[in-house]
């Protein structure tokens, strides 16, 4: 039987971080996830990351002018946004090639995060 959904005041409050990845090689969704998890685990350890409620919601591929650009939305707990953000500068390599993560912005809903920070040109979802 499915659990009854929690009442709103007991649910964890969320924030959505829109981010952008520039890399020398194209990345898949799983690779983006493993990069973020690896870096977060390295910087804060399992104990810290368990409080972040990290979840990669969606990832878009939007290459432009020869550069591999991936954009995505990362969910985290409200109040931990700064800690989650601080994980991004630590990521710099993937399989010997360079990658860089930038935060595009923080939003309260997936819809507005997508509307504000991920432009229309990025349709190819995966």
């Amino acid at each position, binding site marked *: 039987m499915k659990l009854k959904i929690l009442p709103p005041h007991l649910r964890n409050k969320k924030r959505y971080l829109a981010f952008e990845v*520039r890399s*020398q090689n194209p990345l898949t969704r799983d690779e983006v996830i493993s990069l973020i998890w690896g*870096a977060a685990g*390295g*910087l804060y350890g399992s104990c810290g990351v368990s409080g972040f409620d990290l979840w990669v919601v969606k990832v878009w591929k939007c290459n432009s002018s020869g550069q591999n650009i991936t954009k995505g939305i990362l969910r985290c707990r409200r109040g931990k946004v*700064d*800690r989650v*953000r*601080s994980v*991004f*500068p*630590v990521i*710099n390599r993937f399989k010997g090639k*360079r*990658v*860089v*993560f*930038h*935060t595009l912005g923080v939003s309260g809903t997936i819809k507005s995060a997508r509307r504000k920070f991920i432009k229309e040109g990025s349709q190819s979802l995966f």
Partner: protein
Amino acid sequence: MILFFDFHVKDDPELVKEADRLGYAGLALFSNGNGNNSSGNGNKVEVASGETTNQENSTKKENPIKTYKGIFISAKNPESMRQKVKKSRKNADVIMVRGGDQKINRAACEDPQVDILSAPYLKRRDCGINHVMAKKAALNEVAVELNIKYLTKTNSYLHYKVLSHFREIIKLERKYGFPLIITSDAESIYDLHTPQDLIALSGCFGLDREEAEAALSETPQKIIERSETRDKVVVDGVKIIE
């Protein structure tokens, strides 16, 4: 709105463009990369700085982002460091001295002509400065650099060491009040990060938001202000006013 600056970037138009996109207001460009400046004889320094001026002009037209000319000095002993600083002071807006050696760290802290002491913890087991140097740095307004690339370049299992060096420096900064500066030391676009991400990261080594903003914005502005008025200062405390 706060203006953010990155004062340790390789001289490359692509990097300037990328930094503009990421929201920086100004950069200090170093044409002689990190530590590669072989014992740096005078000619070399002059040629390198001449190139910077040309590129500086071209980038100024394209972008509203401000660029400043920086000279990176790596010396083997304090004596040659002082000579090189003296020689290149007039050609540069920002002078950065490569730290790491204890004697050079100290000489840089004692020299008011130096703007930034770069990475005093470089290849060391301690943070590279102590209370004596901290006092001198505060007196001479020599900024101490926290190099983000040094953090990301080290193996992830040694991050704790770099972070603890940063913490030591911040502890001294809170006590003696020398300027602190956070730089990216970027050589490619993959080394640049948005200022907001860097502020978030600086929470990891114990800086709060205001201090981090000051390290990215106020300290660089003061350095530029000082280098602009440096010609007019006759002696310490005496300035020519036109």
